[in-house]
């Protein structure tokens, strides 16, 4: 099983009591609490940690993007990828991902991903996501068009990567009279595509039909298994065989020299489960964004929201894994046995977890955990 390093690049340097005055840290919490001098230092620190994860032997570096929130100030997944494409040597760069429904120019997106792939020497894993409602508000894209735009944006990117230009595109949501990108991916026919999932059966089926790698995020094992079943349905429709390489899973994880230190560091993940996901349902799932099936499944998938769980609940449910290298290796192997996944994505830095703790965790993962899991 292959391990991936991920940080949301949080900006949690504000008094929590200030954040609690607002209905959500996303959208509402005013950006006067954003501190450019701190952000300057943080970005450099987070990039250093990614570079160290490359050296430590992680299979890949996962990058994501959010907006209008202190939980993630990585506001341009392709911008970060372009930096790491140049400053790292061997790890895959997993963009998870570009938020297709809010994209106004899929051709530019196809070009930017291709450019990062070229600079990195073909190390891009190109994840595409539907995004959460927050990004729909931020971009002011009609939520009822979310899935249509996701699919049309995807189709146009794929056409850019697989068919010679120039050509014209007249779709429902995208219109380009002259498509002829002079920047195409190094990997052929195109960089591997990854799709995350938390609740939509339709997304899992769609990913399976296309043979893309599918990664549930922070869901209970039984829900991940159900989503994988939907994925297999889609794969079967297209006559595809599903292997462990098609399946991934995302959890939060940290290791340290002692169990006590690891458990102390792991508490930082509770912030992302609770405080950063607090807010009205309208913010996270505006009307029309989810299908009825997706809404039903989301209710089932989260009988108890992550925000309602204690640290002990989150540890017991394997949403967070924290321990010595031997202990986390054992738990990762447990995840692998339970779900049969080939890729384990580790959200490995969060909230106010400091630089030395993060670096030591990366170092220990590289020295002890990654080798222990290499044969799984």
């Amino acid at each position, binding site marked *: 099983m292959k391990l991936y390093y991920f940080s949301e690049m949080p900006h949690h340097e504000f008094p929590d009591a200030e954040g609690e005055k607002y209905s959500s840290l996303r959208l509402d919490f005013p950006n006067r609490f954003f501190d450019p001098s701190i952000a300057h230092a943080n970005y450099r620190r987070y990039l250093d940690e990614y570079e160290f994860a490359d050296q430590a032997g992680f299979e890949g570096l996962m990058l994501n993007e959010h907006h209008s929130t202190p939980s993630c100030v990585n506001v341009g997944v392709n911008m970060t990828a372009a930096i790491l494409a140049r400053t790292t040597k061997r790890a895959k760069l997993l963009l998870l991902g570009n938020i297709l429904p809010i994209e106004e120019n899929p051709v530019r997106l196809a070009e930017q991903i291709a450019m990062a792939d070229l600079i990195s020497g073909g190390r891009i894993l190109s994840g595409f996501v539907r995004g959460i409602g927050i990004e729909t508000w931020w971009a*002011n*894209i*009609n*939520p*009822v068009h979310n899935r249509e735009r996701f699919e049309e944006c995807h189709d146009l990117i794929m056409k850019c990567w697989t068919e010679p230009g120039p050509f014209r595109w007249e779709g429902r949501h995208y219109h380009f009279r002259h498509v002829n990108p002079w920047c195409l991916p190094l990997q052929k026919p195109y960089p591997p595509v990854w799709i995350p999932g938390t609740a939509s059966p339709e997304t899992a089926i769609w990913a399976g039909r296309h043979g893309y790698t599918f990664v549930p995020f922070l869901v209970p094992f039984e829900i991940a298994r159900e989503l994988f079943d939907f994925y297999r349905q889609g794969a079967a429709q297209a006559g595809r065989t599903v292997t462990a390489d098609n399946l991934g899973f995302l959890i939060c994880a940290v290791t340290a020299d002692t169990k006590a230190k690891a458990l102390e560091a792991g508490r930082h993940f509770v912030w992302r489960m609770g405080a950063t996901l607090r807010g*009205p*349902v*309208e*913010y996270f799932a*505006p*009307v*029309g964004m989810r299908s009825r099936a997706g809404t039903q499944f989301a209710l089932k998938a989260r009988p108890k929201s992550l925000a309602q769980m204690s640290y002990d609940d989150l540890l017991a449910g394997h949403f967070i894994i924290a321990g010595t290298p031997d202990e986390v290796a054992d738990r990762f192997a447990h995840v692998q046995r339970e779900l049969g996944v080939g890729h384990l994505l580790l959200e490995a830095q969060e909230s106010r977890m400091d630089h030395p703790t993060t670096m030591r965790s990366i170092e220990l993962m590289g020295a002890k955990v990654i080798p222990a899991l290499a044969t799984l």
Partner: protein
Amino acid sequence: MRPREETLSVGGIDVHAWVGGRGDPLLVLHGAGGNRGWTRWVEQVSERFTVWAPTHPGFGRSGDAEWMEGIDDLARFYLWFIDAAGLGRPHLLGHSIGGWTAAEMAATSPRAIDRVVLVAPVGLKPETGEILDVFYYPPPELLGMTVHDPRTIPEWDALFGKTPTPEELEIATRNREMTARLTWKPYMHNPRLDRFLPRVTNPALIVWGREDRIVPVVCGEQYRKLLPNATLTVFERCGHLPPIEQPDAFARLVLDFLSAPAAPARGHATR
């Protein structure tokens, strides 16, 4: 007079409608909350006019219209509906997004309709203030902001006091989805509508609630200035739902306006 229910097929969409009353036809276009049926004010107005109250495509029990992109589509659809239903040249009354639709219809085809009643219509960008972002709030909280004082509303319990059935919840979700489809961006207005409203010389009555927290009352002034033959009436102690909040006064005002022998003079009124 009890209404009948009809389903008309227009442009391939089955449109559910309440129809009843006697007299000249009056087409009534509902707001984002959906078609509330034969409420008290409709009952009173239907004594002298034949009320046609269709449910918009994508709302309630009408068919889907996922191809629609904006209120201009809905306006063109209802001009077609007028022909399909054989309404001749009806009076037109619209509330909120139905008011915006009515304004677009009048601006597109002023001779297809007779007199126009716009009740707290969206459609124009307020000169001051903002139209409340109705998608940003949970529905129960939004309802509280929609009216001025529930205790003064005679039909409050009948309309809002019951726990909704699963079917009613599904319809409420559907109504919100279709509203989002039609009004998301530019939010609740057409930046070019003001260019076309001066064409509408039809007698027009604009009605607003002084305490409207959804659409600023300044929009009523904007409509009055842009429409060459319009009066504005503002109800005191009233929010965004004048027909529901003050049904008797509202029905009387509408009946007076529609029955007046000549077009009323321009001006203001306060009730």
